């Protein structure tokens, strides 16, 4: 089941539904609707129906199915008759006897905090530097953005070459014997560095694009008023960049909630690298097929995502309207 993908898709699509749902409420109550020709009405109906069917079928359908399946012990084999309702047993098991669950929650939170504090801030810093048109800024831009272009499998492999305990670059250069991927106290940080490697370039590019669109006269005005570079940035540029800031924040939250691929490539999310998403995958995908149990994990992840997005987005929107 594509629970993890569906969840993130659900988040982004939720906005789309909201937008799509608004269209019909504005139109049909008005008398002018009757003046629309038959063709126009068909087009409008189609425009409403097609996205609704797609969103319901591809996003909400699987999401609701996941929630329902989380109350069963289905193993993915057989039809309806083989699906047995077991109440909240899966949730009970997840919380009481499933050791990887607690570290997974902690790691997801750590991931969120780390991405916010380091790569996001660093990416913004790099964008500001590059915006100064330093010599060779094209080269730096390309170099810093390169990690985004590489496929995830390749990223995992590159870092494996660096982090390998016996044959890795890092231990060879530092003359150490640190087990970067194997030591459960170290590996989450090693992976966060690798994740930051990708995330920094992404944020840098987003922010750089925003900086380029800032009206140069604002800077000139600030300079005329005698503001320092730092003061100009925090006092003038940063507030003007509000839309980009929102995008950067949302991107970071989504990135950390859906953190999955890098860890999966390294060790399928075991041994100190547990994340909710990898637990869902290892239970649902493959031969294991603990569909019910995995769905319970996916539902918990959906709840966490919905709550954080639910608190977060309205706050931002409200501030925007002000």
């Amino acid at each position, binding site marked *: 089941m594509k629970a993890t993908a569906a969840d993130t898709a659900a988040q982004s699509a939720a906005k789309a539904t909201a937008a799509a749902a608004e269209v019909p409420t504005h139109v049909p109550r008005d008398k002018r609707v009757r003046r629309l020709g038959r063709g126009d009405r068909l087009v409008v109906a189609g425009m409403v129906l097609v996205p609704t069917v797609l969103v319901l079928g591809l996003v909400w359908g699987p999401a609701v199915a996941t929630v329902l399946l989380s109350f069963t012990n289905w193993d993915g*084999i057989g039809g309806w008759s083989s699906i047995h309702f077991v109440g909240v047993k899966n949730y009970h098991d997840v919380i009481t*006897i*499933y050791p990887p669950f607690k570290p997974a929650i902690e790691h997801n939170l750590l991931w969120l905090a780390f991405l916010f504090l380091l790569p996001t801030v660093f990416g913004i810093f790099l964008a500001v530097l590059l915006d100064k048109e330093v010599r060779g800024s094209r080269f730096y831009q390309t170099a810093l953005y390169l990690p985004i272009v590489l496929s*995830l*499998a390749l990223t995992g492999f590159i870092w494996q070459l660096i982090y390998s305990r016996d044959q890795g670059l890092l231990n060879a250069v530092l003359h150490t014997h640190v087990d970067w991927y194997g*030591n459960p106290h170290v590996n989450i940080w090693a992976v966060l560095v690798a994740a930051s490697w990708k995330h920094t370039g992404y944020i840098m590019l987003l922010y750089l694009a925003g900086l380029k669109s800032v009206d140069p006269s604002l800077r000139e005005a600030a300079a005329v008023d005698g503001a320092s570079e730092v003061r100009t940035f925090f006092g003038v540029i940063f507030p003007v960049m509000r839309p980009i800031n929102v995008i950067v924040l949302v991107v970071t939250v989504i990135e950390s909630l859906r953190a999955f691929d890098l860890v999966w*490539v390294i060790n399928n999310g075991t041994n100190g690298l547990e994340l909710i998403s990898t637990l869902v995958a*290892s239970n649902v995908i493959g*031969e294991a097929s603990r569909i019910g149990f995995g769905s319970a994990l996916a539902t918990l992840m959906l709840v966490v995502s919905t709550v954080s997005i639910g608190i977060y987005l309205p706050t931002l929107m409200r501030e925007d309207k002000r």
Partner: protein
Amino acid sequence: MIRPDTEADYLARMVPPSFSGPILGRRTLFRAALGAGAALGLAACGGSSSAGNGSTGKLTLGSNASDPVPKKALQDVVAQFRAGNPGITVAVNTIDHNTFQNNINNYLQGRPDDVFTWFAGYRMQFFAAKGLVHDISDLWTGLQGYTPAFKAASTGADKKQYFVPESYYPWAVFYRKSVWKKFGYTEPKTLDEFTALCQQMQKDGLIPIAFADKDGWPAMGTFDILNLRINGYQFHVDLMAGTESWDSPQVAKVFDTWTSLLPYHQKDPLGRTWEEGAQSLQQKKTGMYLLGLFVAQQFATNEQDDIDFFNFPEVDPAIGADALDAPIDGYMMAKRPKNEAAAKKMLTFLGSAASGTVVGRSDSGTLAANTGSDTSSYGALKKKAAQIVGSAKSIAQFMDRDTRPDFASTVMIPSLQSYLKSPKDVAGILKSIEQQKKSIFT
């Protein structure tokens, strides 16, 4: 939990199944659609291809042999089958090894190929019990050359046969002859001799036992062999089947013995792949390595003769050392094959000595399961491997094949890794395993 055979395979493993998964899903859907269409067409014609006597028609064979060497071996086998049965056309659908395994549930419930590759033991019994594969007990009356252990590994819980063994490889303790000759080591027969050997190796500046468990499955091999030596084959089978308890004193004893051996194991196994472990053996940094025969892949061609191995030594004289892990690969038949007669003909051929001869010759990593097969193409290593398995009284399949797949992957891999992280916490880990086992085996 597959042993990657080549570097390409290893790289392929790094692609998350979420990437490769949907491809098969789509393919399966497509095939299901095709199959449904074909079935309608046939029904309309009032005829059926399965009505033939087996000497004609089209046969599909689903294969997980995606690596070059096993793929070539299967091609050779199919070519020989075609030579004897010119009326049957065989279409081989090769699917990436991991993808095949990860999608087996969907595959079997969709429109599977008439004959397909799978593993012996519990993994076979699981699908047999679910009614997803065809009983082939009638074929087994005609099959020659299989030892009772191989027949048992092909038999479901209902005492019917569902599986035709093709090849296997043993797990044993591998070492380099040149290193052992240099230091004058001899193969240990008991745990005490084994421990003494480890201590001597440490004095000689070697790491005694290579060890790697980044992927989670190799440590299962160590658990398996210790449990087989300490508690015997029947207890191991019952433990895997979920009837024995994991927080029993017997299992605790296995972990205690393991803990006593841990100081001789290579440090930090959780960050090391089995390939890196095998390379440490190849580079003469480690003295021995408990692994499957596939360890030889990490050695150059001119080093193959330098590899030797011994059966894991006896721990308890009352139990002996006549059991080992030797995973068997083979074939099964779909529940509703499109061409049943041809499928049975194919399976009979796959179970023949002639087919085993071809496999044994084409694939250096595995041995022919049929004892009647010609083994003159084997090197010294394979000859010894055949001999050690032939003389074993009981053969286990390896933990991830002997127990429920969900239990092996979602409980045992994390649990064994936590044990290796904190060996002192055995009691807590075993209690947790037992709780999760009870929840899964219900």
